[in-house]
């Protein structure tokens, strides 16, 4: 099963990549890990005329701590994030999410930036970056801008990254409070039927909870957060708050899980994620 023909180029710098992206208009597509794009191309559901292979832009691959932020280059692979020592010590939730993605081979190729920009409603990363209040650095030809995670995911497969922009970095405030990610995977694909990331900010006596897989767009479960604001985290308070995990959203349903079951999983996984985070 072959893709439609296309041209291929490997820009050497971010600026070159941005220039090419602009020059080709809507006909060019960035190629990072390729695990969403290439299968779609093989089915000929995607037929870009030009692929810009940015996987060797090493500058976009770094993982480092900078100014109270854990900065993860968009091209860092899931495997690199899962194994990184700084991540493990400063924000273990990211490592936990990275390790839950796909399988060993997919983690070796797939990148955090590729996953986030693809904005599959069942991807794992969005839950984590929402719960961690991450900021995303996005480069265009003229300017670089920061976007809060909460403003980033617009709709199914749609983010605030414009066609001529490139996501460069994901910045997470650290040290992040203890967190946990609990995922119920779709049996065949491994994508999330429901993934819940929870972060406990003990000092501020608040939690942050984000849910992926359940709605067309990943979301912060603000109802859960509000219900727990200022409260101690006990089995009872958590269980009561978790009931709001799918409030105010329209859950998706398909052959793998009905909307009702997804909403139920949001509650179950929120409970587990908060319990685990609170215990860490």
């Amino acid at each position, binding site marked *: 099963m072959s893709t439609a023909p296309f041209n291929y180029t490997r820009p050497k710098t971010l600026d070159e990549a941005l220039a090419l992206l602009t020059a080709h208009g809507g006909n060019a597509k960035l190629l990072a890990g390729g695990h969403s794009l290439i299968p779609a191309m093989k089915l000929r*559901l*995607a037929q*870009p005329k030009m692929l810009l292979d940015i996987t060797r832009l090493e500058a976009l691959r770094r993982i480092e701590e900078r100014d109270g932020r854990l900065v993860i280059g968009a091209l860092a692979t899931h495997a690199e994030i899962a194994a990184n020592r700084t991540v493990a010590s400063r924000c273990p939730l990211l490592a936990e999410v990275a390790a839950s993605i796909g399988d060993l081979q997919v983690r070796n190729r797939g990148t955090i930036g590729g996953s986030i920009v693809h*904005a*599959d409603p069942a991807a794992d990363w969005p839950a984590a970056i929402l719960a961690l209040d991450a900021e995303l650095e996005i480069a265009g030809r003229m300017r670089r801008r920061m976007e809060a995670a909460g403003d980033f995911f617009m709709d*199914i*497969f749609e983010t605030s990254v414009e066609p001529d922009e490139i996501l460069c970095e994901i910045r997470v405030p650290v040290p992040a409070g203890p967190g946990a990610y609990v995922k119920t995977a*779709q049996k065949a694909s491994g994508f999330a039927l429901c993934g819940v990331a929870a972060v406990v900010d003990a000092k501020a006596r608040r939690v942050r909870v984000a849910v992926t897989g359940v709605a067309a767009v990943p979301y912060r479960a603000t109802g859960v957060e509000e219900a727990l604001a200022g409260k101690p985290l006990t089995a009872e308070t958590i269980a009561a708050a978790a009931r709001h995990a799918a409030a105010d959203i329209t859950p998706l349903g*398909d052959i793998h899980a009905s909307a009702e079951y997804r909403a139920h999983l949001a509650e179950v996984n929120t409970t587990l994620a908060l319990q685990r985070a609170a215990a860490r």
Partner: protein
Amino acid sequence: MKLTGTYRCPAPRARVYAALIDPVVLQRCIEGAEQLVRTAGDEYDVRMRIGIGAVKGVFSGTVRLADMQAPEAFTLHVEGKGAPGFVSGSARIRLDDAEPGTAITCDADGQVGGVLAAVGSRLVDAAGRRMMDRFFERLGREFDPPTTS
């Protein structure tokens, strides 16, 4: 795939109805509609470019208006095919007065076939809903007061 939605439009029912069966307005409101050409009384040839993330496809087909009961209701039949497969469906659209505008209820039943159905079933509903929401959002904007610039 069954989709239901209720939308509000800041204009009287008769004007909304007229807009909904006006091909020029329809083309503006259907995201990706590149052309809409009348072929018979209430039938149009349509060409649409649909893009959801990396998945993009050009569909060509027909749009037909039927069971028209101005200014209360009509049915929209859509058939289209393209490289990723085909889409077909119908939507019953009902208009009710809802001061100060009109409430539009849309009951759609659609079918997607080909590659799209085989690999995209989990996304078809969400994508369909998005297209429906966008359509009515754009329709609402048709009646926005003109902005002064």
